[in-house]
């Protein structure tokens, strides 16, 4: 079963929830797809077993074959090539690795080489198999890392918790497209609610069953809760704001491993999710 945890807005507690859901399960895999700012490993502190680089293809020009016709420059939509001092210069940071220049060159002067844009670290933290995607600073797109991460666990039949990046852009879509269920985490502010509506639209588009967990709840009117009620969205969990929880989390403590109250709270949410998935599966067959 693959559960994706997303939020639209950063800082709502997406990672907190994803980590704790993984740790209260008997066995689970946790995938950190927030490759620009991965944080899950700070809490899980996994023992790293192996590291795989994530590579993309970059053009390599054979100067001897190049005639300076510039067909490659004319073709490239990303302006990744320039002609200076009678040779083609490649700008790897804007290249999208489409391979078009290799096809267009009439002299077959362009081949490709691999370039590392980041890595995936795999390790173990008690009952959780941890996979963290990390994008190198300065690299433009983390999408290839997320693709590789998701691919690596595609045939995993057990519980997989996917910690999606914030927002609702392409990289989020890559993270959730194979999920069986999505958990949307919302905070009780109008900022959070505006962003909740964006991920709501996203999961509806992808037709993935979903529910909302309201986090950092305070004792007053919660615009996110109102949104869920207005749109008839299942609220599958509520976590109250607590100075203690904030402090423990700030120190990188996985509260469900050290505190029985939180262990119960997250286990209840996980059970609810499992029920919802089972319900969806039976109602579809």
């Amino acid at each position: 079963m693959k559960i994706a945890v997303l939020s639209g807005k950063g800082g709502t507690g997406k990672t907190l929830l994803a980590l704790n859901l993984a740790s209260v399960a008997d066995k689970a895999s946790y995938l950190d797809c927030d490759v620009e700012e991965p944080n899950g490993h700070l809490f899980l502190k996994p023992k790293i077993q192996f590291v795989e680089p994530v590579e993309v293809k970059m053009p390599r020009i054979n100067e001897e074959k190049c005639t300076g016709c510039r067909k490659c420059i004319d073709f490239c939509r990303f302006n990744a090539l320039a002609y200076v001092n009678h040779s083609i210069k490649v700008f790897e940071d804007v290249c999208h690795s489409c391979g078009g220049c290799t096809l267009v060159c009439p002299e077959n002067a362009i081949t490709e080489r691999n370039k590392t844009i980041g890595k995936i670290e795999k390790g173990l933290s008690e009952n959780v198999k941890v996979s963290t995607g990390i994008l190198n600073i300065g690299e433009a797109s983390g999408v290839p890392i997320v693709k590789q991460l998701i691919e690596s666990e595609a045939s995993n039949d057990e519980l997989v918790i996917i910690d999606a990046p914030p927002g609702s852009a392409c990289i989020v879509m890559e993270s959730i497209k194979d999920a069986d269920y999505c958990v949307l985490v919302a905070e009780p502010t109008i900022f959070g609610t505006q962003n909740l509506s964006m991920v709501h639209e996203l999961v509806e588009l992808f037709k993935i069953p979903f529910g909302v967990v309201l986090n950092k709840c305070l004792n007053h009117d919660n615009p996110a809760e109102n949104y869920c009620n207005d749109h008839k969205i299942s609220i599958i969990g509520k976590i109250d704001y607590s100075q203690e929880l904030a402090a423990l989390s700030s120190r990188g403590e996985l509260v469900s491993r050290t505190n029985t109250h939180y262990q119960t709270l997250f286990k209840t949410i996980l059970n609810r999710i499992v029920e919802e998935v089972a319900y969806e599966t039976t109602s579809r067959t």
Partner: protein
Amino acid sequence: MKQLLVLSGKGGTGKTTVASALIQLSHAKAFADCDVDAPNLDLVMHQRCEPIKTDYFGMPKAIIHEEVCIECGQCQSQCRFDAITYNQFNETYQVNLNACEGCGVCELICPVDAIHLESLVDGQMLLYKDERVFSTAKLKMGSGTSGMLVTRVKKQMMEEEIDTNIAIIDGSPGIGCPVIASISGVDYVLIVAEPSLSGISDMERIISTASGFGVKTFVCVNKYDVNTEYTDKIEGYAKRKHLEFVGRIPYDVEAVKAINQGNTIVDIDCASGRAVGQIYETIKNKL
């Protein structure tokens, strides 16, 4: 006009809360929301007028003309982004516009010229103009935010001839393209950090990204009382990196109430508002 950009690295540290307060305190007559993936500033900066909307055309994407297509499948096999699939139901090849990166390889290799790249409307730039100028954008879902759009949002604000001592820009989280584009050309950056392991890790990454630009950088900590030990660590780190540490803001339930009522935290009297007030006084002298 001088530009102050508010960044954080990590999402949810209070960037928009702080940026909106600074706009009020500085009486800035120009501001922009560059977090086009999830724009929020409009919820607390009440614009009384209707915005001027301009269509934003994104990167051209591939469109397959079914009538011409001979279903050879070459486009699908050459696409590096898995953006072309065969739809059994319609018996056609089709392009997933979210996955398509607009590289043009399919257009190049199609033997019957059935594929063309076309620019589609990805969203709208919005410009609110009354006594103040507010520039932002709303993207269609799935449209990637881009450095280009961020640059356009800033430019839209800058092009208005408005007399303001400072322009405030609410930046986006992360360290990628849109953030890098937002830093280019600004005069000052204020980093809003959060005293948590995640917050510190992300702050270090954003400082590393921003440092190449040589822009004067200030650092403050929001919700500092959640972990004062980490707040001290952040202050120490800022000093070691020769960045100006300009203040601490407490976690404040009143702030949530203010925001939810559509106000900035300096529109009411509360502890976090007073703290941002002091931060503004500190920064003001250095602008």
